[in-house]
């Protein structure tokens, strides 16, 4: 049976040509004697092209069903199909796989929508408004994007027999509006909208923020699918604590009491106890999470799935930030356009990204305590800029930094900590 890699990789047109010609020759056809651009040759080429298309579709279907990593939705980056990223985003193989096998729904992009308050000024004119009749706009001060909103249908708002709503002079009415573009780009802060439609003496704006969301990234969705089964057990496995510190039982992101998405990205759960004790530590990208996030995680773990069986002593707390000073030197061969500040920025960004991934307690943990290795840091720094070599981390004494149980390593590295030697070939 062909291997996994062979089956998800489509054959090339050349392979199809060779194969069809080989079969034809084996069947006794003197295929090499055909006249180029003759009818026979044209038929052969058309057949090969068709087989190539079929083969590509088959490989795509296989990738769609074979694994989360190879499956994509339209609009996602697909290493096997460079056109896919440009397709209109929507459910496809990946969403289907996630829903049918892992019981997890991919969060699609949403339009920002909500109510605006329309005020009819005291100019003596009664206004009869229809759905879609009013346009509002907002210019994002950061991106400069001008987004527009329209009033939308609502049977409870437009109650007149002709489908309108009457607004008497000097009164206001709440009207539902929706952004004309989908996604977070359409988000508007409270009171951000202005009435564009010219109606003398009238105004309108949104009392609350109107939030639009982008589609969940493919990798985030895959990760959510993989951890989805942790929520199945009520028997208190570590994975259930880890999952519920970050997400609801249905896999949607956990919100804290302020309605803000919990920023916990890493969780350590104690592995063994002879007396029924479970200690969990939480960390965010920036170190210790907020107290609101910790409360939300603890409440969710206790309440939502009974992950904590009776008689268990459970404590969830913030991880302690452990500052790890990383600095050193590196060499790079001279080439046009090199400058040390850019290289150092690359190094620090690479390290910063890696530190966000280091687990609480570090690597190779024993009873929750582990290490961050100098050789790893040097390799990560080297990846920060193409062409670096002889990367030496000099601020760490010995081969590693010890990370105690419940501690999370945080990067402490500034540009002045690094020296770049640009080597000119002799």
């Amino acid at each position, binding site marked *: 049976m062909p291997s996994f890699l062979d*089956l998800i990789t489509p054959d090339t047109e050349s392979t199809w040509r060779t194969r069809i010609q080989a079969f034809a020759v084996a069947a006794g056809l003197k295929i090499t004697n055909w006249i180029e651009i003759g009818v026979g040759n044209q038929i052969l080429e058309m057949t090969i092209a068709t087989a190539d298309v079929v083969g590509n579709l088959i490989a795509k279907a*296989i990738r769609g069903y074979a694994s989360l990593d190879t499956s994509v939705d339209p609009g996602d980056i697909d290493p096997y199909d460079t056109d896919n990223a440009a397709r209109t985003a929507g459910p496809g193989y990946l969403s289907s796989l996630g829903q049918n096998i892992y019981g997890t729904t991919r969060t699609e992009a949403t339009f920002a929508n909500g109510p605006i308050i329309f005020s009819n000024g005291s100019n003596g004119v009664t206004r009869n408004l229809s759905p879609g009749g009013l346009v509002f706009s907002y210019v994002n001060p950061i991106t400069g994007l001008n987004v527009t909103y329209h009033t939308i249908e609502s049977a409870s708002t437009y109650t007149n027999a002709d489908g309108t709503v009457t607004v008497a002079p000097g009164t206001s009415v709440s009207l539902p509006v929706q952004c004309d573009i989908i996604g977070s780009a359409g988000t508007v802060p409270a009171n951000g909208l202005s009435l564009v439609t010219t109606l003398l003496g009238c105004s309108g704006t949104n009392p609350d923020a109107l939030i639009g969301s982008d589609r969940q990234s493919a990798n985030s969705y895959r990760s959510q699918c993989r951890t989805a089964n942790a929520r199945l057990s009520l028997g208190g496995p570590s994975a259930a604590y880890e999952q519920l510190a970050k997400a609801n039982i249905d896999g949607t992101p956990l919100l804290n009491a302020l309605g803000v998405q919990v920023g916990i990205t890493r969780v350590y759960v104690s592995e*063994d106890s002879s007396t029924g004790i479970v200690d969990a530590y939480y960390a965010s990208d920036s170190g210790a999470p907020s107290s609101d996030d910790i409360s939300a995680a603890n409440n969710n773990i206790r309440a939502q799935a009974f992950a904590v069986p009776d008689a268990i002593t459970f404590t969830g707390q913030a991880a302690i930030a452990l500052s790890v000073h990383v600095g050193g030197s590196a060499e790079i061969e001279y080439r046009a356009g090199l400058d040390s500040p850019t290289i150092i920025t690359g190094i620090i960004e690479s390290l910063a990204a890696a530190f966000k991934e280091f687990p609480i307690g570090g690597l190779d943990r024993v009873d929750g305590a582990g290490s961050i290795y100098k050789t790893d840091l040097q390799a990560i720094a080297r990846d920060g800029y193409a062409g670096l070599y002889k990367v030496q981390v000099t601020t760490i004494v010995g081969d590693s930094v010890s990370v105690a149980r419940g501690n999370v390593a945080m990067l402490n590295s500034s540009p002045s900590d690094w020296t770049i030697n640009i080597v000119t070939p002799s």
Partner: protein
Amino acid sequence: MTTIGYVQQFVASVGPYFLRNRYIGAFLEAVATNYDLALQTLDFGLRLSQPLRCDSSALPVLSRDRGLPFYPGESDLSRRRRLTQWKQLARQWGTHPGELNNSQPYFLPYRPLMRIVHQDGLGASATWHTLDTNGQYTWHQQIPSNWNWDGIASKWSRFWVIAYAPVEFCSLVRYGDGTRYGDGHHYAGARESVTANDLVSMIKGKKSAHSRLSGYIIATDPASFDPTATAVTDPSGWTSLPTGNWGQPINSSGTRTRLPSALWIYDTRTL
């Protein structure tokens, strides 16, 4: 499921006579054979998500997607079997039946009798979980307790696994034969240490966070570790079940404490 040659035979049988001649016929059958191959590829590809039918190269992919780690000494048979049961196994993570169900396939095609035993916090009873050779789970509570490990009843969330494994899996060295302990928990040096590590990891990886695997015992006597039995003391001093004396394998008088027919592949003593 496709059959190689089906499309080729179909084309060969339905074409008019002038499309069955030596040249055109050969060409059409060549094309049809390629579609046979394409369909076979599709068939093989759709099997990639089927643990019992896929190529073994797909198993690590399924392991990652389904959150079921593989173990170095685990056979493909066990891997495939566990992957088919991934949701059922996940449903039981953290429970003793779940730990047994996750481990028993390791021995496939043999299905050994396996037990997990623990004592309550008052030392009043022992609970025995059993997965028999047919995959049937039962539990038994023995009052008064017949599993008093070291006399420390307050350490109630400890548990012990007992596997009546076939000899070829665990012909391990024994304590006292001159081979030293390795990291303090596992026996070291033997090829079978891979198996021992696998078996222990299969329990520890999916157990509840609030518990401790205190020991993993390979039983060679089918009659030993009877859940309903009462401890019997051998004339030489060891007991058939723990009576508070198994925290150390040899007591202060130099006498063996544990029954000699069992092997300990993991032993945290009194943690």
